[in-house]
Protein backbone atom coordinates (compact mmCIF):
# COMPACT_ATOMS: atom_id res chain seq x y z
CA UNK A 1 0.00 0.00 0.00
CA UNK A 2 1.38 3.37 -0.90
CA UNK A 3 2.32 5.73 1.91
CA UNK A 4 -0.30 8.34 1.02
CA UNK A 5 -2.99 5.68 0.88
CA UNK A 6 -2.06 4.26 4.27
CA UNK A 7 -2.19 7.73 5.82
CA UNK A 8 -5.58 8.28 4.17
CA UNK A 9 -6.96 5.01 5.52
CA UNK A 10 -5.63 5.74 9.02
CA UNK A 11 -7.24 9.16 9.06
CA UNK A 12 -10.60 7.84 7.88
CA UNK A 13 -10.56 5.12 10.52
CA UNK A 14 -9.77 7.68 13.21
CA UNK A 15 -12.82 9.73 12.16
CA UNK A 16 -15.28 6.89 12.28
CA UNK A 17 -18.63 8.66 12.54
CA UNK A 18 -18.41 11.24 9.75
CA UNK A 19 -16.78 8.56 7.61
CA UNK A 20 -19.73 6.24 8.14
CA UNK A 21 -22.24 9.03 7.54
CA UNK A 22 -20.69 10.00 4.22
CA UNK A 23 -20.40 6.34 3.24
CA UNK A 24 -24.09 5.96 4.01
CA UNK A 25 -24.93 8.99 1.87
CA UNK A 26 -23.10 7.64 -1.14
CA UNK A 27 -24.45 4.11 -0.61
CA UNK A 28 -28.04 5.36 -0.45
CA UNK A 29 -27.48 7.56 -3.48
CA UNK A 30 -26.10 4.68 -5.53
CA UNK A 31 -28.84 2.31 -4.35
CA UNK A 32 -31.57 4.78 -5.20
CA UNK A 33 -29.92 5.52 -8.54
CA UNK A 34 -29.98 1.79 -9.36
CA UNK A 35 -33.53 1.20 -8.16
CA UNK A 36 -34.96 4.09 -10.18
CA UNK A 37 -32.83 3.38 -13.22
CA UNK A 38 -33.69 -0.34 -13.26
CA UNK A 39 -37.37 0.45 -12.97
CA UNK A 40 -37.39 3.12 -15.65
CA UNK A 41 -35.22 1.17 -18.04
CA UNK A 42 -37.20 -1.99 -17.31
CA UNK A 43 -40.51 -0.35 -18.15
CA UNK A 44 -38.96 1.19 -21.23
CA UNK A 45 -37.74 -2.18 -22.45
CA UNK A 46 -41.09 -3.71 -21.65
CA UNK A 47 -42.74 -1.01 -23.73
CA UNK A 48 -40.33 -1.47 -26.62
CA UNK A 49 -40.79 -5.23 -26.44
CA UNK A 50 -44.53 -4.82 -26.88
CA UNK A 51 -43.86 -2.43 -29.72
CA UNK A 52 -41.50 -4.86 -31.42
CA UNK A 53 -43.68 -7.89 -30.86
CA UNK A 54 -46.77 -6.32 -32.33
CA UNK A 55 -45.40 -4.56 -35.36
CA UNK A 56 -43.14 -5.60 -38.22
CA UNK A 57 -39.45 -5.08 -37.56
CA UNK A 58 -38.94 -3.93 -41.13
CA UNK A 59 -41.53 -2.96 -43.70
CA UNK A 60 -40.55 -2.79 -47.36
CA UNK A 61 -43.10 -0.84 -49.40
CA UNK A 62 -43.43 -0.06 -53.08
CA UNK A 63 -42.13 3.46 -52.61
CA UNK A 64 -38.81 5.13 -53.08
CA UNK A 65 -37.16 7.19 -50.41
CA UNK A 66 -36.36 9.97 -52.88
CA UNK A 67 -38.47 11.03 -55.81
CA UNK A 68 -36.81 9.96 -59.05
CA UNK A 69 -34.81 12.62 -60.78
CA UNK A 70 -35.72 13.79 -64.21
CA UNK A 71 -33.78 11.92 -66.90
CA UNK A 72 -32.45 15.26 -68.17
CA UNK A 73 -30.95 16.03 -64.77
CA UNK A 74 -29.41 12.59 -64.56
CA UNK A 75 -27.83 13.06 -67.96
CA UNK A 76 -26.43 16.56 -67.32
CA UNK A 77 -26.12 16.96 -63.54
CA UNK A 78 -24.24 20.27 -63.85
CA UNK A 79 -26.21 21.67 -66.76
CA UNK A 80 -28.75 24.44 -66.48
CA UNK A 81 -31.45 22.27 -67.92
CA UNK A 82 -34.93 21.85 -66.63
CA UNK A 83 -37.84 20.34 -68.37
CA UNK A 84 -40.98 21.67 -66.81
CA UNK A 85 -44.26 19.93 -66.30
CA UNK A 86 -42.78 16.48 -66.33
CA UNK A 87 -44.82 14.03 -64.29
CA UNK A 88 -43.40 10.70 -63.15
CA UNK A 89 -44.44 7.88 -65.41
CA UNK A 90 -47.64 6.30 -64.17
CA UNK A 91 -46.59 2.91 -63.00
CA UNK A 92 -48.77 0.05 -61.98
CA UNK A 93 -48.19 0.21 -58.25
CA UNK A 94 -46.44 -2.67 -56.54
CA UNK A 95 -42.99 -4.08 -55.98
CA UNK A 96 -41.53 -5.00 -59.34
CA UNK A 97 -39.91 -8.41 -59.51
CA UNK A 98 -41.12 -9.15 -56.00
CA UNK A 99 -40.39 -12.86 -56.22
CA UNK A 100 -36.65 -12.35 -56.79
CA UNK A 101 -36.52 -9.52 -54.28
CA UNK A 102 -38.19 -11.61 -51.63
CA UNK A 103 -35.84 -14.47 -52.48
CA UNK A 104 -32.88 -12.11 -51.96
CA UNK A 105 -34.21 -10.89 -48.61
CA UNK A 106 -34.69 -14.46 -47.48
CA UNK A 107 -31.02 -15.20 -48.14
CA UNK A 108 -30.11 -12.77 -45.33
CA UNK A 109 -29.50 -14.58 -42.05
CA UNK A 110 -31.74 -14.39 -39.00
CA UNK A 111 -34.96 -13.13 -40.55
CA UNK A 112 -38.31 -14.20 -41.90
CA UNK A 113 -40.18 -12.28 -44.60
CA UNK A 114 -43.73 -12.39 -45.92
CA UNK A 115 -45.23 -10.76 -49.02
CA UNK A 116 -48.39 -8.71 -48.52
CA UNK A 117 -50.74 -6.94 -50.87
CA UNK A 118 -52.38 -4.11 -49.03
CA UNK A 119 -55.50 -2.40 -50.34
CA UNK A 120 -58.77 -0.80 -49.37
CA UNK A 121 -62.09 -2.51 -49.85
CA UNK A 122 -65.63 -1.76 -48.82
CA UNK A 123 -67.41 -4.50 -46.93
CA UNK A 124 -71.17 -4.74 -47.21
CA UNK A 125 -73.32 -6.76 -44.84
CA UNK A 126 -76.98 -6.46 -44.11
CA UNK A 127 -77.18 -3.09 -45.83
CA UNK A 128 -74.23 -1.55 -43.99
CA UNK A 129 -71.04 -0.42 -45.68
CA UNK A 130 -67.62 -0.11 -44.09
CA UNK A 131 -64.25 0.72 -45.65
CA UNK A 132 -61.50 -1.53 -44.29
CA UNK A 133 -57.92 -2.43 -45.08
CA UNK A 134 -57.49 -5.77 -46.76
CA UNK A 135 -54.19 -7.64 -46.24
CA UNK A 136 -53.59 -10.26 -48.90
CA UNK A 137 -51.28 -12.77 -47.22
CA UNK A 138 -49.62 -16.14 -47.62
CA UNK A 139 -50.71 -17.79 -44.34
CA UNK A 140 -47.64 -20.03 -43.99
CA UNK A 141 -45.29 -17.05 -44.37
CA UNK A 142 -47.41 -14.66 -42.37
CA UNK A 143 -47.15 -16.89 -39.33
CA UNK A 144 -43.40 -16.32 -39.28
CA UNK A 145 -43.64 -12.54 -39.17
CA UNK A 146 -46.74 -11.71 -37.20
CA UNK A 147 -48.38 -12.57 -33.92
CA UNK A 148 -51.82 -12.39 -35.54
CA UNK A 149 -52.09 -16.19 -35.35
CA UNK A 150 -51.86 -16.04 -31.54
CA UNK A 151 -54.47 -13.30 -31.40
CA UNK A 152 -57.16 -15.38 -33.10
CA UNK A 153 -60.00 -16.08 -30.73
CA UNK A 154 -61.89 -18.19 -33.24
CA UNK A 155 -60.86 -20.00 -36.40
CA UNK A 156 -57.33 -20.13 -37.84
CA UNK A 157 -55.08 -18.67 -40.50
CA UNK A 158 -54.82 -22.07 -42.21
CA UNK A 159 -58.53 -21.89 -42.86
CA UNK A 160 -57.63 -19.20 -45.42
CA UNK A 161 -55.51 -21.72 -47.29
CA UNK A 162 -58.24 -24.32 -47.42
CA UNK A 163 -61.02 -21.82 -48.06
CA UNK A 164 -59.94 -19.41 -50.85
CA UNK A 165 -62.90 -17.16 -50.14
CA UNK A 166 -62.10 -16.94 -46.47
CA UNK A 167 -61.74 -13.67 -44.58
CA UNK A 168 -60.24 -13.06 -41.15
CA UNK A 169 -61.58 -10.00 -39.30
CA UNK A 170 -61.14 -8.32 -35.95
CA UNK A 171 -63.49 -8.54 -33.02
CA UNK A 172 -64.35 -4.83 -33.26
CA UNK A 173 -65.56 -5.21 -36.83
CA UNK A 174 -67.40 -8.42 -36.03
CA UNK A 175 -69.27 -6.68 -33.19
CA UNK A 176 -70.06 -3.64 -35.28
CA UNK A 177 -71.46 -5.69 -38.15
CA UNK A 178 -72.88 -8.46 -36.04
CA UNK A 179 -70.67 -10.96 -37.85
CA UNK A 180 -69.75 -14.35 -36.56
CA UNK A 181 -67.88 -17.39 -37.84
CA UNK A 182 -69.31 -18.49 -41.17
CA UNK A 183 -71.04 -15.15 -41.91
CA UNK A 184 -70.84 -14.07 -45.52
CA UNK A 185 -69.99 -10.50 -46.54
CA UNK A 186 -69.59 -8.71 -49.84
CA UNK A 187 -66.31 -7.00 -50.55
CA UNK A 188 -66.01 -4.34 -53.23
CA UNK A 189 -62.75 -2.85 -54.52
CA UNK A 190 -62.31 0.73 -55.76
CA UNK A 191 -61.97 -0.77 -59.25
CA UNK A 192 -65.46 -2.17 -59.03
CA UNK A 193 -64.65 -5.84 -58.48
CA UNK A 194 -66.97 -7.54 -56.01
CA UNK A 195 -66.41 -10.87 -54.23
CA UNK A 196 -68.36 -12.73 -51.65
CA UNK A 197 -66.20 -13.70 -48.66
CA UNK A 198 -66.85 -15.90 -45.66
CA UNK A 199 -65.59 -15.17 -42.14
CA UNK A 200 -63.22 -18.00 -41.15
CA UNK A 201 -61.40 -16.36 -38.26
CA UNK A 202 -61.82 -13.59 -35.67
CA UNK A 203 -58.90 -11.97 -33.83
CA UNK A 204 -58.54 -9.64 -30.89
CA UNK A 205 -55.35 -7.64 -30.44
CA UNK A 206 -56.68 -5.20 -27.89
CA UNK A 207 -55.93 -2.27 -30.20
CA UNK A 208 -59.44 -1.00 -31.07
CA UNK A 209 -58.58 0.70 -34.33
CA UNK A 210 -56.65 -2.36 -35.53
CA UNK A 211 -59.49 -4.69 -34.56
CA UNK A 212 -62.00 -2.60 -36.51
CA UNK A 213 -60.01 -1.84 -39.63
CA UNK A 214 -57.70 -4.71 -40.51
CA UNK A 215 -58.85 -7.78 -42.42
CA UNK A 216 -56.91 -10.67 -43.88
CA UNK A 217 -57.53 -12.72 -47.00
CA UNK A 218 -55.50 -15.04 -49.17
CA UNK A 219 -52.95 -13.20 -51.34
CA UNK A 220 -54.36 -14.68 -54.56
CA UNK A 221 -57.88 -13.63 -53.61
CA UNK A 222 -56.79 -10.11 -52.72
CA UNK A 223 -54.88 -9.79 -56.00
CA UNK A 224 -58.04 -10.75 -57.89
CA UNK A 225 -60.31 -8.50 -55.86
CA UNK A 226 -58.01 -5.47 -56.15
CA UNK A 227 -57.30 -6.22 -59.81
CA UNK A 228 -53.55 -6.37 -59.18
CA UNK A 229 -52.85 -9.78 -60.60
CA UNK A 230 -49.57 -11.26 -59.38
CA UNK A 231 -48.60 -8.12 -57.48
CA UNK A 232 -47.36 -7.44 -53.99
CA UNK A 233 -46.84 -3.98 -52.51
CA UNK A 234 -45.26 -4.80 -49.20
CA UNK A 235 -42.81 -7.14 -47.49
CA UNK A 236 -43.18 -7.62 -43.80
CA UNK A 237 -39.96 -8.74 -42.12
CA UNK A 238 -39.30 -10.09 -38.64
CA UNK A 239 -35.79 -10.46 -37.22
CA UNK A 240 -34.31 -12.74 -34.59
CA UNK A 241 -32.52 -9.68 -33.22
CA UNK A 242 -34.97 -6.76 -33.42
CA UNK A 243 -32.20 -4.28 -32.63
CA UNK A 244 -30.47 -5.15 -35.90
CA UNK A 245 -33.46 -3.81 -37.83
CA UNK A 246 -31.93 -0.47 -38.72
CA UNK A 247 -28.82 -2.06 -40.22
CA UNK A 248 -30.68 -4.83 -42.03
CA UNK A 249 -33.19 -2.32 -43.42
CA UNK A 250 -30.31 -0.32 -44.87
CA UNK A 251 -28.85 -3.43 -46.52
CA UNK A 252 -32.21 -4.32 -48.04
CA UNK A 253 -32.91 -0.82 -49.26
CA UNK A 254 -29.48 -0.55 -50.88
CA UNK A 255 -29.93 -3.87 -52.64
CA UNK A 256 -33.52 -3.70 -53.90
CA UNK A 257 -34.03 0.06 -54.15
CA UNK A 258 -37.42 0.19 -52.46
CA UNK A 259 -37.94 1.98 -49.20
CA UNK A 260 -37.27 -0.32 -46.22
CA UNK A 261 -38.37 1.17 -42.90
CA UNK A 262 -37.14 -0.30 -39.62
CA UNK A 263 -39.30 -0.15 -36.50
CA UNK A 264 -36.80 2.27 -35.01
CA UNK A 265 -37.29 4.64 -37.92
CA UNK A 266 -41.05 4.45 -37.85
CA UNK A 267 -41.14 5.12 -34.08
CA UNK A 268 -38.46 7.79 -33.94
CA UNK A 269 -40.80 10.25 -32.19
CA UNK A 270 -41.53 7.72 -29.46
CA UNK A 271 -37.86 6.87 -29.10
CA UNK A 272 -36.99 10.52 -28.63
CA UNK A 273 -39.62 10.76 -25.90
CA UNK A 274 -38.01 7.78 -24.18
CA UNK A 275 -34.61 9.42 -24.53
CA UNK A 276 -35.86 12.61 -22.88
CA UNK A 277 -37.46 10.54 -20.14
CA UNK A 278 -34.13 8.81 -19.49
CA UNK A 279 -32.27 12.13 -19.46
CA UNK A 280 -34.66 13.52 -16.85
CA UNK A 281 -34.43 10.36 -14.76
CA UNK A 282 -30.65 10.26 -14.84
CA UNK A 283 -30.33 13.96 -13.98
CA UNK A 284 -32.55 13.48 -10.95
CA UNK A 285 -30.79 10.38 -9.63
CA UNK A 286 -27.39 11.92 -10.35
CA UNK A 287 -28.43 14.99 -8.37
CA UNK A 288 -28.94 12.68 -5.39
CA UNK A 289 -25.33 11.56 -5.72
CA UNK A 290 -24.17 15.15 -5.98
CA UNK A 291 -26.01 15.91 -2.75
CA UNK A 292 -24.45 12.82 -1.16
CA UNK A 293 -21.02 14.08 -2.19
CA UNK A 294 -21.50 17.07 0.11
CA UNK A 295 -21.17 14.58 2.94
CA UNK A 296 -17.77 13.61 1.59
CA UNK A 297 -16.78 17.25 1.21
CA UNK A 298 -17.78 17.86 4.79
CA UNK A 299 -15.93 14.83 6.15
CA UNK A 300 -12.71 15.55 4.30
CA UNK A 301 -12.82 19.28 5.13
CA UNK A 302 -13.22 18.36 8.79
CA UNK A 303 -10.29 15.97 8.63
CA UNK A 304 -8.14 18.63 6.93
CA UNK A 305 -8.99 21.12 9.68
CA UNK A 306 -8.42 18.64 12.49
CA UNK A 307 -5.22 17.31 11.01
CA UNK A 308 -3.73 20.65 10.07
CA UNK A 309 -0.85 20.06 12.53
CA UNK A 310 -0.16 16.68 11.01
CA UNK A 311 -0.19 18.26 7.56
CA UNK A 312 2.25 20.91 8.78
CA UNK A 313 4.56 18.30 10.26
CA UNK A 314 4.43 16.14 7.13
CA UNK A 315 5.27 19.15 4.99
CA UNK A 316 8.10 20.27 7.27
CA UNK A 317 9.40 16.70 7.08
CA UNK A 318 9.62 17.08 3.32
CA UNK A 319 6.28 15.88 1.95
CA UNK A 320 5.36 17.77 -1.22
CA UNK A 321 2.11 19.65 -1.67
CA UNK A 322 1.01 16.96 -4.14
CA UNK A 323 1.69 14.18 -1.59
CA UNK A 324 -0.69 15.92 0.77
CA UNK A 325 -3.27 16.47 -1.99
CA UNK A 326 -3.08 12.78 -2.87
CA UNK A 327 -3.78 11.76 0.71
CA UNK A 328 -7.08 13.62 0.72
CA UNK A 329 -8.03 12.73 -2.84
CA UNK A 330 -7.40 9.10 -1.86
CA UNK A 331 -9.84 9.59 1.02
CA UNK A 332 -12.42 10.76 -1.51
CA UNK A 333 -11.77 7.74 -3.72
CA UNK A 334 -11.97 5.36 -0.75
CA UNK A 335 -15.28 6.86 0.43
CA UNK A 336 -16.65 6.85 -3.13
CA UNK A 337 -15.55 3.28 -3.83
CA UNK A 338 -16.68 1.80 -0.52
CA UNK A 339 -19.94 3.74 -0.68
CA UNK A 340 -20.50 2.45 -4.22
CA UNK A 341 -19.83 -1.10 -3.11
CA UNK A 342 -22.41 -0.89 -0.34
CA UNK A 343 -24.71 1.04 -2.66
CA UNK A 344 -24.59 -1.59 -5.39
CA UNK A 345 -25.39 -4.36 -2.91
CA UNK A 346 -28.20 -2.34 -1.38
CA UNK A 347 -29.43 -1.33 -4.84
CA UNK A 348 -29.54 -4.93 -6.02
CA UNK A 349 -31.52 -5.80 -2.92
CA UNK A 350 -33.98 -3.01 -3.72
CA UNK A 351 -34.22 -4.14 -7.33
CA UNK A 352 -34.94 -7.69 -6.21
CA UNK A 353 -37.66 -6.39 -3.90
CA UNK A 354 -39.18 -4.30 -6.68
CA UNK A 355 -39.15 -7.30 -8.99
CA UNK A 356 -41.35 -9.12 -6.45
CA UNK A 357 -44.03 -6.43 -6.63
CA UNK A 358 -47.12 -7.66 -8.48
CA UNK A 359 -49.41 -5.28 -10.32
CA UNK A 360 -52.63 -5.69 -12.25
CA UNK A 361 -52.79 -3.12 -15.04
CA UNK A 362 -56.30 -1.74 -15.66
CA UNK A 363 -58.03 -3.77 -18.31
CA UNK A 364 -55.54 -6.61 -18.24
CA UNK A 365 -56.66 -9.96 -16.98
CA UNK A 366 -53.40 -11.33 -15.62
CA UNK A 367 -51.11 -10.14 -12.84
CA UNK A 368 -47.65 -9.01 -13.95
CA UNK A 369 -44.44 -8.25 -12.10
CA UNK A 370 -42.82 -4.83 -12.26
CA UNK A 371 -40.39 -4.96 -15.16
CA UNK A 372 -36.86 -4.55 -13.78
CA UNK A 373 -33.81 -4.07 -15.95
CA UNK A 374 -30.63 -5.73 -14.67
CA UNK A 375 -28.17 -4.46 -17.33
CA UNK A 376 -24.57 -3.96 -16.19
CA UNK A 377 -24.15 -0.53 -17.75
CA UNK A 378 -26.36 1.15 -15.15
CA UNK A 379 -24.08 -0.14 -12.38
CA UNK A 380 -21.14 1.29 -14.27
CA UNK A 381 -22.95 4.60 -14.61
CA UNK A 382 -23.93 4.74 -10.93
CA UNK A 383 -20.46 3.80 -9.67
CA UNK A 384 -18.74 6.08 -12.18
CA UNK A 385 -20.89 8.99 -11.14
CA UNK A 386 -20.47 8.26 -7.43
CA UNK A 387 -16.69 8.10 -7.80
CA UNK A 388 -16.59 11.27 -9.87
CA UNK A 389 -18.63 13.23 -7.32
CA UNK A 390 -16.57 11.81 -4.45
CA UNK A 391 -13.30 12.89 -6.08
CA UNK A 392 -14.87 16.22 -7.01
CA UNK A 393 -15.93 16.73 -3.38
CA UNK A 394 -12.46 15.80 -2.12
CA UNK A 395 -10.70 18.10 -4.55
CA UNK A 396 -11.25 21.44 -2.77
CA UNK A 397 -10.22 20.33 0.74
CA UNK A 398 -7.31 18.37 -0.78
CA UNK A 399 -6.06 21.46 -2.55
CA UNK A 400 -6.42 23.50 0.62
CA UNK A 401 -4.43 20.88 2.53
CA UNK A 402 -1.69 20.97 -0.09
CA UNK A 403 -1.39 24.73 0.33
CA UNK A 404 -0.88 24.64 4.10
CA UNK A 405 2.24 26.60 5.05
CA UNK A 406 3.94 24.69 7.87
CA UNK A 407 5.49 27.85 9.31
CA UNK A 408 2.07 29.47 9.73
CA UNK A 409 0.95 26.48 11.83
CA UNK A 410 4.22 26.21 13.78
CA UNK A 411 4.14 29.93 14.64
CA UNK A 412 0.65 29.52 15.98
CA UNK A 413 1.92 26.92 18.43
CA UNK A 414 5.37 28.17 19.36
Amino acid sequence: MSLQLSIAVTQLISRRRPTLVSLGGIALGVAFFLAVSSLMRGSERDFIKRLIDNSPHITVSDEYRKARKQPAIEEWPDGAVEVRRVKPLTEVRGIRGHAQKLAFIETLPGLRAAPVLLGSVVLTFAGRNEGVTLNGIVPAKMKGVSTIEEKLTQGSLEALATNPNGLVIGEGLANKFGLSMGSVVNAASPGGEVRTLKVVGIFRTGNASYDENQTFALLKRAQGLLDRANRVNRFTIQLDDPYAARAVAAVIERQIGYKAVSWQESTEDLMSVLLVRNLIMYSVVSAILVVASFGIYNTISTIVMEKIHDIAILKSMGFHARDIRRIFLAEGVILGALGSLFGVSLGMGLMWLLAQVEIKPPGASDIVHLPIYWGWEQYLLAVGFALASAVGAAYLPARKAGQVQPVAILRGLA
Partner: protein
Amino acid sequence: MTPILVAERLGRVLAGEVPVTLVRDIDLEVGRGEFLAIMGPSGSGKSSLLYLLGLLDTPTSGRILLDGQDTSGYGEDQLAATRLRKLGFVFQFHFLLAEFTVLDNVLLPMRRLGKLDEGAARKRAEDLLEQLGLREHARKHPHQLSGGQRQRVAIVRALANDPLIILADEPTGNLDTHASANVQQILHDLTRQLGTTVIAVTHDVTFANAADRRIGIVDGQIDPEWRA
Protein backbone atom coordinates in the same frame (compact mmCIF):
# COMPACT_ATOMS: atom_id res chain seq x y z
CA MET B 1 36.60 22.48 5.80
CA THR B 2 33.63 24.29 4.23
CA PRO B 3 30.80 25.11 6.64
CA ILE B 4 27.67 22.97 6.29
CA LEU B 5 25.38 25.99 6.53
CA VAL B 6 26.02 29.63 5.65
CA ALA B 7 23.53 32.47 6.11
CA GLU B 8 24.38 35.72 4.35
CA ARG B 9 22.68 38.97 5.38
CA LEU B 10 19.52 37.01 6.02
CA GLY B 11 16.32 39.02 6.53
CA ARG B 12 12.65 38.22 6.80
CA VAL B 13 9.94 40.85 6.73
CA LEU B 14 6.28 39.87 7.05
CA ALA B 15 4.32 41.87 4.49
CA GLY B 16 1.17 43.59 5.71
CA GLU B 17 -0.27 47.02 6.45
CA VAL B 18 2.44 47.41 9.05
CA PRO B 19 5.36 45.24 7.85
CA VAL B 20 6.91 43.21 10.67
CA THR B 21 10.61 42.48 10.64
CA LEU B 22 11.19 39.05 12.13
CA VAL B 23 14.88 38.72 11.37
CA ARG B 24 17.45 41.10 9.88
CA ASP B 25 21.05 41.03 8.66
CA ILE B 26 21.95 37.62 10.01
CA ASP B 27 25.43 36.43 9.00
CA LEU B 28 26.12 32.97 10.32
CA GLU B 29 28.34 30.00 9.54
CA VAL B 30 27.77 26.58 11.09
CA GLY B 31 30.52 23.96 10.81
CA ARG B 32 30.08 20.26 10.12
CA GLY B 33 29.31 18.35 13.31
CA GLU B 34 28.93 21.55 15.30
CA PHE B 35 26.40 21.86 18.12
CA LEU B 36 25.10 25.43 18.03
CA ALA B 37 22.73 26.91 20.59
CA ILE B 38 20.56 29.93 19.68
CA MET B 39 19.43 31.95 22.71
CA GLY B 40 17.68 35.21 23.34
CA PRO B 41 14.66 36.83 24.93
CA SER B 42 11.17 35.71 24.09
CA GLY B 43 9.87 37.17 20.84
CA SER B 44 13.33 38.09 19.60
CA GLY B 45 13.07 36.04 16.41
CA LYS B 46 14.81 32.75 17.30
CA SER B 47 12.11 30.49 15.91
CA SER B 48 11.81 32.68 12.82
CA LEU B 49 15.54 32.31 12.20
CA LEU B 50 15.34 28.55 12.70
CA TYR B 51 12.51 28.25 10.14
CA LEU B 52 14.64 30.16 7.64
CA LEU B 53 17.72 28.01 8.30
CA GLY B 54 15.54 24.89 8.01
CA LEU B 55 14.17 25.98 4.60
CA LEU B 56 10.64 26.02 6.04
CA ASP B 57 10.33 29.75 5.37
CA THR B 58 11.88 31.80 2.59
CA PRO B 59 13.94 34.88 3.39
CA THR B 60 12.93 38.26 1.97
CA SER B 61 16.61 39.23 1.70
CA GLY B 62 19.96 37.48 1.82
CA ARG B 63 20.54 33.82 1.10
CA ILE B 64 21.31 30.44 2.60
CA LEU B 65 23.98 28.04 1.36
CA LEU B 66 23.34 24.46 2.47
CA ASP B 67 26.18 22.00 1.96
CA GLY B 68 27.76 24.47 -0.46
CA GLN B 69 24.60 24.94 -2.52
CA ASP B 70 22.72 28.21 -2.88
CA THR B 71 19.09 27.52 -2.00
CA SER B 72 17.70 30.93 -2.98
CA GLY B 73 16.42 29.80 -6.37
CA TYR B 74 14.65 26.68 -5.06
CA GLY B 75 10.95 26.17 -5.71
CA GLU B 76 8.56 24.63 -3.20
CA ASP B 77 9.11 21.07 -4.35
CA GLN B 78 12.87 21.41 -4.35
CA LEU B 79 12.79 22.88 -0.86
CA ALA B 80 10.63 19.99 0.31
CA ALA B 81 12.95 17.46 -1.31
CA THR B 82 15.96 19.09 0.37
CA ARG B 83 14.26 19.04 3.77
CA LEU B 84 13.43 15.37 3.29
CA ARG B 85 17.00 14.41 2.39
CA LYS B 86 19.20 16.73 4.39
CA LEU B 87 17.32 18.19 7.36
CA GLY B 88 15.55 16.89 10.43
CA PHE B 89 13.28 18.82 12.80
CA VAL B 90 12.50 18.53 16.50
CA PHE B 91 9.92 20.93 17.94
CA GLN B 92 8.95 21.87 21.46
CA PHE B 93 5.69 19.96 21.13
CA HIS B 94 6.45 16.51 19.92
CA PHE B 95 4.36 16.57 16.74
CA LEU B 96 4.05 12.85 16.24
CA LEU B 97 1.10 11.58 14.23
CA ALA B 98 -1.34 10.30 16.83
CA GLU B 99 -2.87 7.47 14.78
CA PHE B 100 0.47 5.87 13.92
CA THR B 101 2.64 3.72 16.14
CA VAL B 102 6.06 4.95 17.23
CA LEU B 103 7.67 2.71 14.62
CA ASP B 104 5.40 3.96 11.83
CA ASN B 105 6.07 7.56 12.81
CA VAL B 106 9.79 6.93 12.46
CA LEU B 107 9.24 5.11 9.17
CA LEU B 108 7.23 7.98 7.60
CA PRO B 109 10.18 10.02 6.26
CA MET B 110 12.01 6.89 5.16
CA ARG B 111 9.00 5.60 3.26
CA ARG B 112 8.55 8.98 1.63
CA LEU B 113 12.20 9.11 0.57
CA GLY B 114 12.11 5.49 -0.57
CA LYS B 115 15.88 5.09 -0.53
CA LEU B 116 15.73 2.00 1.66
CA ASP B 117 13.40 -0.90 0.99
CA GLU B 118 10.78 -1.66 3.61
CA GLY B 119 12.85 -4.29 5.40
CA ALA B 120 15.98 -2.17 5.61
CA ALA B 121 13.96 0.85 6.71
CA ARG B 122 12.36 -1.16 9.50
CA LYS B 123 15.75 -2.43 10.61
CA ARG B 124 17.18 1.08 10.69
CA ALA B 125 14.16 2.45 12.56
CA GLU B 126 14.39 -0.32 15.15
CA ASP B 127 18.14 0.21 15.58
CA LEU B 128 17.66 3.94 16.09
CA LEU B 129 14.86 3.35 18.61
CA GLU B 130 17.09 0.86 20.40
CA GLN B 131 19.93 3.39 20.59
CA LEU B 132 17.64 5.92 22.23
CA GLY B 133 16.23 3.32 24.62
CA LEU B 134 12.79 3.13 22.99
CA ARG B 135 12.90 -0.43 21.74
CA GLU B 136 10.04 -1.72 23.87
CA HIS B 137 7.86 1.24 22.87
CA ALA B 138 8.03 0.67 19.10
CA ARG B 139 4.50 -0.71 18.83
CA LYS B 140 2.93 1.86 21.14
CA HIS B 141 0.99 4.93 20.10
CA PRO B 142 2.34 8.38 21.05
CA HIS B 143 -0.33 8.96 23.74
CA GLN B 144 1.00 5.93 25.62
CA LEU B 145 4.41 7.56 26.10
CA SER B 146 5.77 10.19 28.49
CA GLY B 147 6.77 13.64 27.22
CA GLY B 148 10.47 12.79 27.32
CA GLN B 149 9.92 9.54 25.46
CA ARG B 150 7.90 11.32 22.80
CA GLN B 151 10.63 13.89 22.37
CA ARG B 152 13.14 11.08 21.89
CA VAL B 153 10.86 9.50 19.27
CA ALA B 154 10.75 12.88 17.52
CA ILE B 155 14.56 12.91 17.52
CA VAL B 156 14.66 9.38 16.09
CA ARG B 157 12.24 10.46 13.37
CA ALA B 158 14.37 13.53 12.62
CA LEU B 159 17.37 11.20 12.27
CA ALA B 160 15.55 8.68 10.08
CA ASN B 161 16.93 9.80 6.71
CA ASP B 162 20.41 10.43 8.13
CA PRO B 163 20.23 14.22 7.79
CA LEU B 164 23.16 16.65 7.65
CA ILE B 165 21.55 18.97 10.19
CA ILE B 166 19.05 18.57 13.00
CA LEU B 167 17.12 21.76 13.77
CA ALA B 168 15.49 21.83 17.18
CA ASP B 169 13.16 24.52 18.57
CA GLU B 170 13.20 24.35 22.38
CA PRO B 171 13.40 20.56 22.38
CA THR B 172 13.58 20.50 26.18
CA GLY B 173 11.17 23.35 26.79
CA ASN B 174 8.42 21.01 27.84
CA LEU B 175 10.44 18.46 29.82
CA ASP B 176 11.47 18.04 33.45
CA THR B 177 15.15 18.31 34.44
CA HIS B 178 15.85 14.60 34.12
CA ALA B 179 14.25 14.14 30.70
CA SER B 180 15.78 17.37 29.55
CA ALA B 181 19.29 16.19 30.52
CA ASN B 182 18.61 12.99 28.62
CA VAL B 183 17.61 14.78 25.42
CA GLN B 184 20.56 17.13 25.77
CA GLN B 185 22.90 14.15 26.14
CA ILE B 186 21.47 12.50 23.02
CA LEU B 187 21.85 15.61 20.86
CA HIS B 188 25.37 16.05 22.19
CA ASP B 189 26.27 12.44 21.39
CA LEU B 190 24.87 12.83 17.87
CA THR B 191 27.41 15.47 17.00
CA ARG B 192 30.22 13.43 18.52
CA GLN B 193 29.32 9.99 17.15
CA LEU B 194 27.49 10.59 13.87
CA GLY B 195 28.97 13.96 12.99
CA THR B 196 25.45 15.37 12.63
CA THR B 197 25.20 19.13 12.97
CA VAL B 198 22.73 20.31 15.60
CA ILE B 199 21.20 23.80 15.69
CA ALA B 200 18.99 24.22 18.73
CA VAL B 201 16.96 27.17 20.00
CA THR B 202 16.84 27.10 23.78
CA HIS B 203 16.10 29.06 26.95
CA ASP B 204 17.80 26.39 29.03
CA VAL B 205 21.24 27.60 30.15
CA THR B 206 22.49 24.11 31.12
CA PHE B 207 21.48 22.88 27.71
CA ALA B 208 23.17 25.83 26.01
CA ASN B 209 26.34 25.28 28.02
CA ALA B 210 26.60 21.76 26.61
CA ALA B 211 26.73 23.22 23.08
CA ASP B 212 29.95 23.98 21.19
CA ARG B 213 28.87 27.56 20.56
CA ARG B 214 26.12 29.95 21.63
CA ILE B 215 24.70 32.94 19.77
CA GLY B 216 22.23 35.46 21.11
CA ILE B 217 19.36 36.93 19.07
CA VAL B 218 17.89 40.26 20.13
CA ASP B 219 15.30 42.11 18.04
CA GLY B 220 15.90 39.79 15.12
CA GLN B 221 19.65 40.40 15.02
CA ILE B 222 22.69 38.58 16.35
CA ASP B 223 23.82 40.40 19.49
CA PRO B 224 27.48 39.54 20.33
CA GLU B 225 27.05 41.09 23.76
CA TRP B 226 24.16 38.86 24.78
CA ARG B 227 24.55 36.79 27.93
CA ALA B 228 21.88 34.53 29.40
